[in-house]
């Protein structure tokens, strides 16, 4: 439990300043001469797989870049113009947006409810373990589990719906249902995890506040509204940012379950062609990667979009401040 608290503490307060460590101790002064040996592998990794790719991806996004030739020709903003004008790209944004709203909305509300219940009922590690299990499983496995369960002919979900007189629904093969179904699948996967994060945040709320409130005869709901929510805000914002960014990047489950049995990712009728899938196809699949530059342009737009969302969210919700100050 101390780990949890220290983690939250570090997010709230900035990293220790140099001043502190300078005071720290006599024999520990050294400089780059020593540090470089400890940093070498991770510097190499950072350079090769984060810094270099970032520069290269932006460069490629301004080039006519066939994947096979590794040699591009500068064409200015042409790729961006193509991508933004592409109906399939706008479809991808719309589809992803629908998915994110459904997924994050459901997941956050459910997780809040579960976290409050756990906070009031039990700290059992067993309960928490079970809730966390779906999050640990490989995405592809999750996709296939639900591919079977949601199958219109052999799936258990439609069997159960049938008991209530509902006709079989092709959750993954019907364009009206495919995005809600995928959102539900990932809601299943991430709700327990999100609940655990919120639950951890709730442990920092001083219990004396609840005691005082219950002395005043406050109801559970009132305590939730006036104590839990305001004090949980920084954690909630952080959790929301993490899950939003993750949700926008949905891919594995679409690859595994999109279109249902015998279908392909993106099926039916492009209704599950999410942004990641669009970029992937543009970069590697369409015409043997001949238009990888457009893929890079779309990926750059996605990254910029995620950054903007993060900044807006931090601003709007005053993330740094808890009313606990």
């Amino acid at each position, binding site marked *: *439990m101390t*780990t*949890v608290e220290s983690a939250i503490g570090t997010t709230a307060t900035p990293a220790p300043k*140099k001043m502190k460590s300078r005071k720290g*101790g006599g*024999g*520990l002064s*050294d*400089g*780059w001469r*020593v*540090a470089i040996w*400890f940093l070498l*592998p*991770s510097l190499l*990794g*950072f350079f*090769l*797989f*984060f810094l270099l790719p970032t520069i*290269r*991806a932006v460069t490629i996004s301004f080039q006519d870049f066939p994947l096979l030739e*590794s040699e591009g020709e500068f064409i200015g903003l042409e790729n961006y113009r193509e991508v933004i004008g592409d109906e399939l790209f706008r479809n991808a944004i719309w589809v992803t947006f629908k998915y994110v709203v459904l997924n994050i909305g459901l997941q956050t509300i459910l997780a809040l*409810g*579960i976290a409050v*219940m756990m906070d009031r009922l039990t*700290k059992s590690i067993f309960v*928490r*373990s079970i*809730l*966390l*299990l779906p999050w640990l*499983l*490989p*995405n*592809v*496995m999750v996709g296939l*589990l639900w591919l*079977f*369960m949601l199958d219109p002919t*052999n799936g*258990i979900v439609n*069997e159960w719906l049938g008991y209530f007189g509902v006709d079989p629904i092709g959750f993954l093969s019907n364009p009206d249902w495919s995005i809600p179904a995928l959102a539900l699948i990932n809601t*299943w996967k991430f709700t327990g*995890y999100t609940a*655990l994060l919120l639950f*951890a945040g709730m442990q920092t709320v001083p*219990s004396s506040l*609840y*005691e005082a409130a219950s002395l005043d005869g406050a109801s559970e709901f009132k305590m939730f509204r006036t104590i839990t929510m305001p004090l949980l805000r920084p954690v909630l914002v952080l959790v929301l940012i993490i899950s939003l960014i993750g949700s926008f990047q949905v*891919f*594995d489950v679409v*690859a*595994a379950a999109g279109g249902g*049995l*015998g279908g392909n990712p993106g099926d039916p009728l492009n209704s599950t062609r999410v942004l990641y899938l669009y970029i992937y196809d543009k970069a*590697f699949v369409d015409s043997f990667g001949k238009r*990888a530059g457009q893929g890079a342009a779309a990926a*750059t737009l*996605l990254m910029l979009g995620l950054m903007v969302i993060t900044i807006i969210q931090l601003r709007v919700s005053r993330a740094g401040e808890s009313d606990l100050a």
Partner: protein
Amino acid sequence: MSNVSNTAATAVALDDELIEGAASSKKRKQRKAGSGNKQMTLGRAAAWAVLTVVMIASLFPVYWALRTALSNNNAIIQDTGTLYPPELTGFNFQRVFGWGEITQEQIVAAGANDVQFDIWSPLRVSLITSTLITLGQVFFCAMSAYAFARLKFKGRDVVFTIFLSALMVPPIFALIPNLLLIRDMQIDLGIFAIDMGWLPFADDKTGWTSTYPGLVAPYILMTPFAIFFLRQFFIGISKEVEEAAVLDGAGHLRRFFQVILPMAAAPIFTLALITYVNSWNEFLWPFTAGKNLEVITVALNDFRAQTPGTTRPDWSGLMTATFIAGAPILILFAVLGRKVVDSIQFSGIK
């Protein structure tokens, strides 16, 4: 932990105690506490019921895969709703693992199709890549976390911040350049460099694609999260211990290996666990760069494509492979569940 947990749950009992004063007898307290609980019984019971349903919902799909894997496929198709295996058999596991002789009649009788699963190969590839990534990443990140937490050098905090900013890079953004880099790698690593074609159009220029070095390269040296995670703990280790080692004439290497690493064994183990699970579950990179050296998630995705959408899909076979793909995670989880849960709460709020 116990402090936090008990206070909230027993708030009512405490209040009674306060009102009636410390002199109240034990019996009285118990009675009061009891009545306090009774007042909440209905709400609490309902909440427990909901929580139980949520727990069942968490477990059910995994159970359902196992139930399907343990049954004859013909029975699965006829009997979609039975909560236990409608026709218990171990044949699917035998088939997917490739144990013993399997005749055509057996396959027909099991209602299966004769797609070859050959699950050992992807399991082995996943085992090797996940182990390599975990060992490398944890060790190298411990090294740089030591530098960021314990050494002083110009621009340290700036470098650290730049490292952390890599968290903002979405994997797909770096995917094209990373693939190009791996494909253009011409360094021959002997036994590891298994030269295989990559995609149909990738003539003879395959570099490190579909090789072990290619599969592990983007993750084995560093991830921003691992460095951040370990640095937190290294900062917390008392300076006195390290200074005592300095007095003994220990250099940086000895201090790192003999003081820091042993004292941070628990968080290092936790990080290793998280890294292993993440590597095992990774899909996008091996799907792109390992078409001919498939890890288990990629192979599983292929099995799905091979299971045609006919009237008689091989659900049992597919669910058996699915269950096996997640089994190592389930086992890790069963053995070390507590550690995972504690560490996830930490790691998530980063």
